[in-house]
């Protein structure tokens, strides 16, 4: 594999001798040469696109050179827990789109499944290659002050972000080799191989392709970088067509090449204008029929949204018991469903200290912290919950363990989460790294790149 690289945020452009962390963590030699890293970052210009006031801009994703450290022991249990969780989620998806035993056996009330906007009846009865629905799962975790890891959410619709720590590692090894000779860090540069193995495993004959909405998409860098590393063809929808229920790539000589596995980032509802949203201009007509006929694998499978829904999250530990007969290794954040009597009672009594999520709303919309509400608003909210109990879930607010970051040369503590990547192919494997995102704002719980946050590399120690 070739050397590949990242960038750093602008603040680091100032020359400063940066010596990082040490005492709080188990590593021996800190990352050095932050300035040189910075120069390499410039050179390799890794960017992500965002729209600000309707204008497209390419920004550097601020990189913090202090890595998150996960000890070998911690990782072993996280790894086991993640494999367990993703295996159960894949079994759940298969069940929901086939026999629905988990509903028949009263483990999950059917309303929670069928009112989810991620549930797509059009996918009923389709069996993806090797029954894998979520090939790439991004599981967001946080570490609490009690050192316990909690699952925040599951992302089963092609989660993005792996390319950043991947390229950052490459770079840090060049600029700060001693950190790697002195510490036992598991090499994370096998991500492309993990991804390619997964694509090859489900490939229905033909080339692997990565479908991108184009250069002006936030994840464009990731798409093109992963295409390069996995040897896939980077394609846009107008280069593709379905003929005889086979997906083809149009070539410049007027020929066509069969696509056997399609990694895609566009949402299910825009995937095929002849099956889903008819006005979609970014989809591929009749892709769903090619998929149904078993001629192409779609990575990740359409319909996965039903399993990473806010309302379904509560049931994942139950799924693990139901499908695998095992106790969940990783914990959910303590969650309550007002739908159940005892939970409702608790939620109404403790509303002021809980965070409430509207299951019908996406992302950060519909998330309310009870502590932000006035007495009057709290009462009002209680009535809403009583009226529509199945619309909400309530969670305890987790006290995150803060991580050190460099802010203008000074080390400060900030909230951070971890997106772990789990790849399902012949076996389910956890990438020994992950994307650690932190918030720039000291009071913010939101670790989001569009809010000015940045990312860190995640070092898993080998012993």
């Amino acid at each position, binding site marked *: 594999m070739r050397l590949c690289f990242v960038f750093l945020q602008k603040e680091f452009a100032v020359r400063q001798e940066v010596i990082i962390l040490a005492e709080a963590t188990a590593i021996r030699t800190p990352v050095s040469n932050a300035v040189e890293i910075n120069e390499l970052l410039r050179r390799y210009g890794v960017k992500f696109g965002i729209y600000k006031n309707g204008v497209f801009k390419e920004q550097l994703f601020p990189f913090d050179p202090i890595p998150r450290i996960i000890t070998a022991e911690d990782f072993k249990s996280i790894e086991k827990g993640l494999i367990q969780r993703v295996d159960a989620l894949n079994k759940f998806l298969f069940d929901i789109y086939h026999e629905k035993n988990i509903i028949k056996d009263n483990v999950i009330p059917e309303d929670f499944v069928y009112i989810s906007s991620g549930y797509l009846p059009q996918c009923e009865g389709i069996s993806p290659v090797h029954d894998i629905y979520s090939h790439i799962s991004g599981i967001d975790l946080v570490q609490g002050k009690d050192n316990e890891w909690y699952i925040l959410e599951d992302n089963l619709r092609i989660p993005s972000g792996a390319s950043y720590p991947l390229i950052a590692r490459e770079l840090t090894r060049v600029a700060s080799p001693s950190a790697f000779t002195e510490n036992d860090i598991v090499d994370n540069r096998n991500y492309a191989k993990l991804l390619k193995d997964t694509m090859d495993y489900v490939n229905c004959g033909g080339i692997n392709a990565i479908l991108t909405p184009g250069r002006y998409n936030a994840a464009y860098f990731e798409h093109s970088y992963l295409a390069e590393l996995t040897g896939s063809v980077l394609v846009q929808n107008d280069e593709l067509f379905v*003929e005889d229920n086979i997906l083809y790539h149009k070539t410049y000589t007027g020929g066509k090449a069969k696509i056997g596995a399609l990694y895609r980032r566009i949402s299910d509802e825009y995937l095929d204008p002849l099956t889903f949203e008819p006005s979609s201009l970014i989809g591929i007509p009749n892709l769903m029929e090619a998929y149904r*006929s078993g001629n192409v694998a779609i990575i990740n499978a359409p319909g996965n949204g039903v399993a990473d829904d806010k309302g379904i999250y509560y049931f994942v530990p139950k799924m693990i018991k139901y499908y695998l007969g095992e106790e969940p290794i990783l914990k959910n954040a303590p969650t309550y469903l007002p739908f159940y009597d005892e939970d409702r009672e608790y939620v109404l009594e403790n509303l002021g200290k809980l965070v409430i999520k509207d299951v019908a709303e996406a992302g950060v919309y519909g998330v309310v912290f009870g502590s932000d509400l006035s007495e009057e608003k709290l009462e009002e909210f209680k009535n809403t919950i009583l009226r529509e109990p199945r619309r909400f879930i309530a969670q305890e607010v987790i006290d995150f363990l803060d991580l050190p970051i460099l802010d203008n040369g000074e080390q400060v503590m900030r909230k951070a989460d971890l997106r772990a990547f789990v790849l399902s192919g012949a076996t389910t494997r956890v990438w020994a790294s992950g994307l650690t995102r932190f918030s720039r704002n000291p009071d913010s719980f939101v670790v989001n790149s569009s809010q000015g946050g940045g990312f860190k590399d995640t070092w898993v120690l080998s012993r």
Partner: protein
Amino acid sequence: MKKLNFCFSTKLTFDNYVREHSFALRCIPPESAAQHILSCELDIVPFVSTKQTVDAFGNNVITGYLKGEHRFLDFEVKGCAEIDSTAQKRDYMPCYLYQSAYTKPDAALKEFHHRISMTCTESEPYSRALCFCEALSQLMTYDKQATDTKTTAAEAFELKRGVCQDYSHILLSVLRLDGIACRYIAGLASCDGETHAWVEIWDGCCWRGIDPTNNCAVNDEYLILSQGRDFGDCAVDRGVMFGAYTKQLQLITSTLSANGYY
């Protein structure tokens, strides 16, 4: 039981050349306990290679891709079917209990449901559906100009006008508000020279048809082409094409004739 000869054709013309035309047709009547297909032929002009699959709702889907330039696409499906509307069909799907894109009720529809459910004394799903159908037919006026294929139940209800598609969507919406599972049917009926639409109600063990446009039960002179949550799942033809056309014109004709009783 009746034997029906059916013929359904559409002629799609464009005012300029189009190319890279992908289409999906749901015009081959599906086989079921109530509908036995004795023969069925599909002709498409210009010639194009096609594939047939069965979608999640049990519909036959014919897909094709016309790469070169063309200005029209015609297809005709004809054949013969044995219809027994009393036979039991049990292909239930849970999604039929929930509102879908076209049937999402607004305040007015909820109010309408509230009102009619108060006056309806029936308790069986099918009888309630007949009851709602009656109320609906008193309120609505059949009007071919008022709505189009994109009109939702709420929009048509506000106009109090529409065609079979709108009648069906409104009925589906109130039935689902009532907790009754039901589905949209696109097909051919002897009363309609184009495609017709009606509703099937899940009575707890099988499907039973109601034609809200004509406020009557469905009999052996209805041929099902496709079924789903609403029109969106059932469109007899859907297509995507490229070209500098500004207009497309679609002519649909259908004939359905009984050719004998059993």
